[in-house]
């Protein structure tokens, strides 16, 4: 941020933002909820990037995770269940300069919002989409979500969920115009931060699935991964999510993976013996929808009036 210059001065920005500038109301998630860590990671990135809070918009649907905007000190849109992505796309359409973070749950994104999910990936508008995957409906108190493991007992499937869980990462990798897909876990702040930062830097829609602990309703679903960290497969690549040395002890299992290799990415996403974290796929060359929707933004009122006049001419007698 502040680099020392030749004359030993630093350039101080006109406004300097602290972490607190990105804090909204007190976060009211349960103690131990993974959402806290995700919030902190995003706030840190905003601070590190010195984003003017008024230039940031966080958009969400409905769910525990979708309370996210309320806890940010930026502009926010806490909308309707499942509809974060269309709203976020609308925000970007004619305000491409705004920085957009999308917080969505596994129910919000993969169940009621699934149709928008496919299409948001295809629009590939520049925003960071965080899938808070706690494998459950949290806010409504423990119903099966598409990512709930088979057999999980919930209030809607008290004798165990019937179907194998949807794999959001694998699904996303099958959609069209997908430009950035990563995975991480809430319980490693270092990798979480690094992944979200990489996602933030990506030009296009970055889709980050975050395994998110819900101690209240699914305290056991990630037990496997947490008790045996070797099941976490850290992806390594020079163009991938940077792997902090601090991770060496925590997550010893590693694999080199070139994020431009879609076939390998899909294979990694499909594995159920390990959970791959890091950047699975990136392609910065995918067209971005805002490059179409921004057209005409700079037109003056006079130009518009002239345009309308010409439009009327075509109907004139």
């Amino acid at each position, binding site marked *: 941020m502040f680099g020392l210059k030749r004359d030993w001065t630093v350039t101080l920005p006109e406004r300097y933002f602290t972490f607190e500038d990105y804090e909204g*109301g007190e976060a009211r998630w349960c103690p131990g909820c993974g959402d806290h860590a995700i919030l902190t990671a995003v706030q840190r990135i905003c601070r590190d990037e010195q984003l003017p809070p008024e230039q940031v918009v966080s958009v969400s649907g409905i769910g525990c995770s979708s309370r996210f905007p309320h806890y940010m000190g930026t502009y926010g849109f806490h909308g309707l269940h499942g509809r974060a992505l269309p709203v976020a796309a609308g*925000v970007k359409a004619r305000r491409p300069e705004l920085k957009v973070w999308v917080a969505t749950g596994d129910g919000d994104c993969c169940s009621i919002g699934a149709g928008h999910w496919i299409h948001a990936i295809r629009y590939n508008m520049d925003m960071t989409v965080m899938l808070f995957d706690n494998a459950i409906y949290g806010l409504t108190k423990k119903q099966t979500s598409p990512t709930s493991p088979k057999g999980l007992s919930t209030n809607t499937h008290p004798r165990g969920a019937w179907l194998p869980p949807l794999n959001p990462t694998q699904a996303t990798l099958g959609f069209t115009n997908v430009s950035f897909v990563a995975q991480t876990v809430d319980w490693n702040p270092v990798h979480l931060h690094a992944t979200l930062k990489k996602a933030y830097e990506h030009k296009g829609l970055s889709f980050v699935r975050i395994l998110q602990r819900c101690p209240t309703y699914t305290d056991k679903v990630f037990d496997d991964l947490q008790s045996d960290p070797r099941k976490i497969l850290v992806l390594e690549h020079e163009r991938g999510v940077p792997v902090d040395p601090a991770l060496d002890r925590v997550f010893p299992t590693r694999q080199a993976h070139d994020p431009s290799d879609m076939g390998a990415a899909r294979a990694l996403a499909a594995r159920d013996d390990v959970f791959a974290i890091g950047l699975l796929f990136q392609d910065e060359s995918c067209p971005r929808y805002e490059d179409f929707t921004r057209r005409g933004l700079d037109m003056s009122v006079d130009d518009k009036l002239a345009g309308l006049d010409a439009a009327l001419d075509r109907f004139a007698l």
Partner: protein
Amino acid sequence: MNEQASPFSPAQHAGPTVIPEHTVEIVSDSGEGAQKAGQIFGAMSAKMGNGVWTVEIIPAEIKPPARSKAGASGIRIRFGEKQITNMGDEADLVLAFNEQVLYGRIANGAYRPGTVILLENKWASHPDDTVKAQYAAGLAELNKRGFVVREMALEQACLAHTSNPRVGKNMFVLGMLCWIYDRDLARARAEINGVFGRKGSAVVARNVELLEGGYQFARSTLTDLHYHVPPRPNLPPQVVTNGNEAIGLGVMGAGIELVSMYPITPATSASHYLAREIERIGGVVHQAEDEIAAIGFAVGASYAGKTACTITSGPGMALKTEFMGLAVMSEVPLVMVLVQRGGPSTGLPTKVEQGDLLSAIYGTPGDAPKIVLAAATIEECFHLVITARQLAETFRTLVILLTDANLATGVSPWDRPTLQAEWMAPPLDQAPWKKGLAPYAWDPATGLSPRPIPGQRDGMYVLTGLAHTERSKVAYDPESNELGCQMRSLKLETLRQGLAKPVVHGDPTGDLLVVGWGSTLGAIEEAVDRVRAKGGKVSSVHLRFLSPMAPGLDEIMAGFRQVMTVEINYSDPHTMAHRRLAQLAQLLRMEHLVDVDSYSQVQGQPLSPGKIEAELWKRLKALSEEAA
């Protein structure tokens, strides 16, 4: 005006009969060009100063088989010496390329005994006996119904000018109409040039030849069919559009820079028009993945300070219901144009109905007061979009603008608007927000509040659909919820108080008052005028604001012995003791406790002035019997 004296110019013929107006139809199989001929005839008539209303007759299928009832494709042109506001009653003259396509029109009540039908007669000698028999039967049927059928060898006559009369006969027919209605052939040639010019001079020449051939053919064979419809004097500059094009122009006029839509009939053609044209004002059309996403995208853009609208029809609105509630609750300005069609459910997608009034007003769970307007004319389709945008932003809410398939597909000239810069949305405000000012700093007297826009320093807030305080903080306490509800409701009252009293068409008192809304304006006023001309004490009033309703209706209604609405939506027949009434009637009764009755139909058709007139006489008669 064309200076050259044409050999076919009307002046050379002795006296056409002067008539105030006529209604003509050209009906054919799909693909025979009837619509093109009618459009040119309508445009010519408008340019010659007539009032005109054209409406296309569209088959339900995309490529219906030839000679089928459901396949009727064509056009109706009503034109006259005054402004024409609706498609009128039964046609005076019909040009038909086969007899089968007439059946559907007859079922729609498009003709009356006396209607002249010029009918292609090649079917009488068709090689296929079934066809021959059909034709004979059809002819008998038409005659039985009292239509004046004149069989004509149209394709035969075309053969003198083209080897492919099936394709060329439309211009031949145009020529015939030019004779019959004393139109300037030079003007017809100019139109043909405009329409076919791009295809090269040979095509133009071929079509002009057919035109002139048709003219000559009619002049020699239809000497008794020769009319003149005088022009309207001193017309201001006109544009000719259908209602959806007017909506599109209105969107541009309002400076709405984002149209977020999902295709649905009959709304879509407005978006088609905009997809081609909106770049003229630097806007874009977003075709979303569904209607929910369409409105969500528009809401997102509007939240971000950009003017946006969504355009849809009934089933689309049904899907938008939840987002409509969010827009109202979180006070996001949004214009939604609703081009109504026949319902419920998929219903009659291409047909006329005004059936979505109550669902527009009441369709959102909870108390969701919003502004609902209805355009009554094609011209209003233009102007009310601009009004709607202003209202949406001033009142920070959802504004629904209702139109219907009748306006959407009707084509008519209207006064070319004088553009105003103020119509356009103001540029994005990015000045710092007043520190400490709440994002919903409701004025307790009006419910209005200024709106922070992302990018405005110190304006940061989190919009939410949950109950919230003026700071947009989620609040579950009784007071906050009550205050929010009140402020949203108060805005409607603020608007209501500012609305002008509706204008009565006709005398301010009398026996019967007709209340209408939307596209029925022209037909209602025409019917009222006819009844009044014959001494009936009937007046009408037409509402543009449905929610809130303009003040002053109470007093207006008090001046009449009976009040009824005329609408195109369902009401139970009079034979039922306990009737469910038409939609505006329900609203008026609730608001005004006046015993408002209704006359309505759900036939997928516009109401004709004649039908309304008949109903008005019936009511007047009942009233006078009651009095006796």
